[in-house]
């Protein structure tokens, strides 16, 4: 099987869903003619034409609103909000229209839309092009948040998101785009985590870029005879508590690695749920996240800011001693 880059997996998922379902449309800033500023929509405009793949003005609120209104009238819009930082501008329609409609129509009309957005730090893009907006949306009932770590998952989970009948935020970490991996075409379901490395001493729950940092740390720790089980959450909302609990019951320790501010993040949500359901199994539980400050530009500062493999390994070593 040939290795496929993460960004190609995204493109392929869009391609296949556009081909499979006439109702799927794709729009956003520079997604059509130019093929996307991150080259994730290359060739789709040529293949499906301007009725189904089109460029928009720089009007994020209109994009989110158009997604909502078209989704309740039979289309399955996929919208690109270029950087996750710009989701603030799209937020009103998403939060106050899309995620409310199913409830307010007495569960008669669902809102099958997908918003794709590029997130994450480490690219030296500074405070307004590097954020991880997950925590802004964790408290919004009716919204799914998907966060893939590998090309195979990127493809399978994006396809599942587009097929899902609910509003889905699909996050793509900018530092994963060039990552290559095998894509076997297997399907994936939203809301299911994956144990990507088995271990016995501590359960490490993470997502996106964090999965790769975690695996790197686990390799290092293995040499110190510390066995780390790595759980890739894959969907952050709603998340797969059962898989996490099953792991914690075996390892008795949990660390959640989140790229995002420690206060109000999804890591806190995971720990709270584990404490509620498995307190008796826990010997230790903690978070590794980013400080409560904006993201700095300068490379040494950004590196200090991010929870990389080294920090993960150091903390686990210290806590397990």
């Amino acid at each position: 099987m040939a290795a496929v880059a993460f960004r190609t997996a995204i493109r392929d998922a869009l391609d296949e869903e556009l081909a499979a379902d006439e109702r799927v449309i794709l729009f956003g800033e520079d997604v059509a003619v130019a093929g996307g500023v991150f080259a994730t929509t290359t060739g789709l405009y040529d293949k499906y034409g301007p009725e189904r793949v089109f460029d928009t003005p720089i009007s994020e609120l209109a994009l989110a609103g158009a997604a909502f209104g078209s989704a309740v009238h039979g289309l399955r819009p996929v919208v690109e909000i270029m950087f996750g930082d710009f989701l603030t501008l799209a937020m009103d329609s998403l939060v106050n229209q899309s995620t409310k409609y199913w409830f307010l129509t007495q569960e008669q009309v669902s809102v099958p839309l997908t918003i794709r957005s590029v997130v994450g730090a480490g690219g030296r893009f500074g405070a307004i092009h590097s954020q991880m907006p997950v925590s802004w949306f964790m408290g919004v009932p009716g919204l799914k948040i998907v966060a893939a770590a590998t090309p195979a998952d990127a493809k399978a989970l994006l396809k599942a998101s587009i097929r899902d009948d609910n509003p889905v935020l699909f996050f793509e970490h900018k530092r994963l785009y060039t990552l290559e991996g095998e894509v076997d075409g297997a399907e994936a379901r939203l809301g299911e985590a994956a144990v990507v490395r088995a271990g016995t001493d501590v359960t490490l729950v993470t997502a996106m870029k964090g999965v790769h940092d975690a695996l790197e740390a686990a390799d290092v720790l293995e040499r110190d005879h510390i066995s780390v089980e790595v759980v890739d959450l894959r969907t952050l909302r709603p998340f797969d508590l059962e898989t996490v609990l099953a792991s914690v019951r075996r390892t008795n320790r949990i660390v959640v690695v989140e790229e995002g501010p420690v206060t109000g993040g999804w890591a806190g949500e995971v720990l709270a749920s584990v404490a509620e359901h498995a307190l008796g199994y826990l010997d230790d539980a903690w978070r590794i996240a980013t400080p409560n400050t904006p993201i700095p530009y300068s490379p040494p500062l950004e590196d200090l800011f991010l929870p990389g493999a080294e920090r993960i390994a150091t903390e686990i070593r210290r806590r397990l001693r």
Partner: protein
Amino acid sequence: MSRVSEKAPTGVLDDLELYTRLYRQMLLIRGFEDLVQSLFLKGEIYGTTHLYSGQEAIATGVASLLEDRDRVAATYRGHGHALALGVDPQKLLDEMLGRESGINGGRAGSMNVNSLDDRLIGSFGIVGGSIAAATGAALALKRTSGGVAVAYFGDGAMNQGYVFECLNFCRVLKLPLVLLCENNGYGEYTSFRSVTAGEIRGRAEAMDVPAETIDGMSVWTVREAAARALAHARAGDGPAFIEAITYRFVGHSRSDPGAYRPEGELDEWKARDPIVLLRAQLEADGIDAGRLDDVARETSEQLDRMRAAGLAAPFPTALESKEFKD
């Protein structure tokens, strides 16, 4: 937009010493951007940058009329605005290089530079955000110093809610704001015509805000229009709007080869390079070419020194940031 003929007419520039200074300023901005680009390609500047090359006449012309009590909100394409306001070029370069000695200690980088001491509220990375920042500044300045706030933004920003909300807000509250739309024909890779209904100016006029469209490549034309807009705002008559037609001579950002430009378009615009136009006019009005050559040489020497000093400056080593002011 009137085209400048091959041979510049004489007696256009009212103050030759002033315009010679502006020539130096524009050369510094262009040279700064060339330096940023070359350092970016060498891996010394990170992430992304959005260069101002080609648009220098606008920031330079407007800034030459601003007073100490005025304020400016720029965009991620903001190096030119910062320099025109008098931000120390070395500190600005050091910021791009991520050094401790940067104007924001390396925290901000190219897209987020700010320096209130230099009247620069900030460079705003969200398209349209500069307008809101300047709106608030205008609200305060009206009650304090009597200054005017200037918001720079691109043609692409005209489709953001920020513009409509702030235009109306400033108009009904009669706030001293000058909105300066730098129409360079493109938002990223998309031509402004293909995503913008009607005329830009008409949107301001619909809200009863006086607006004009001007040649953004001629620094003296920019100065004349800016003087009118600033006078309007200073007189307490509310906001004024300028659409300056211009062109960026480089890609949108570092990763853009500019494949969307029709063939020949860039060359056509380069024939109207604002620096070349100003130089021709200075010479036509009697400034000695040798003196202008000296200015160019001095500027390029200054940039060489800056480059060496910037690359020798230390990086920050610790991220010490308090979340809140005590």
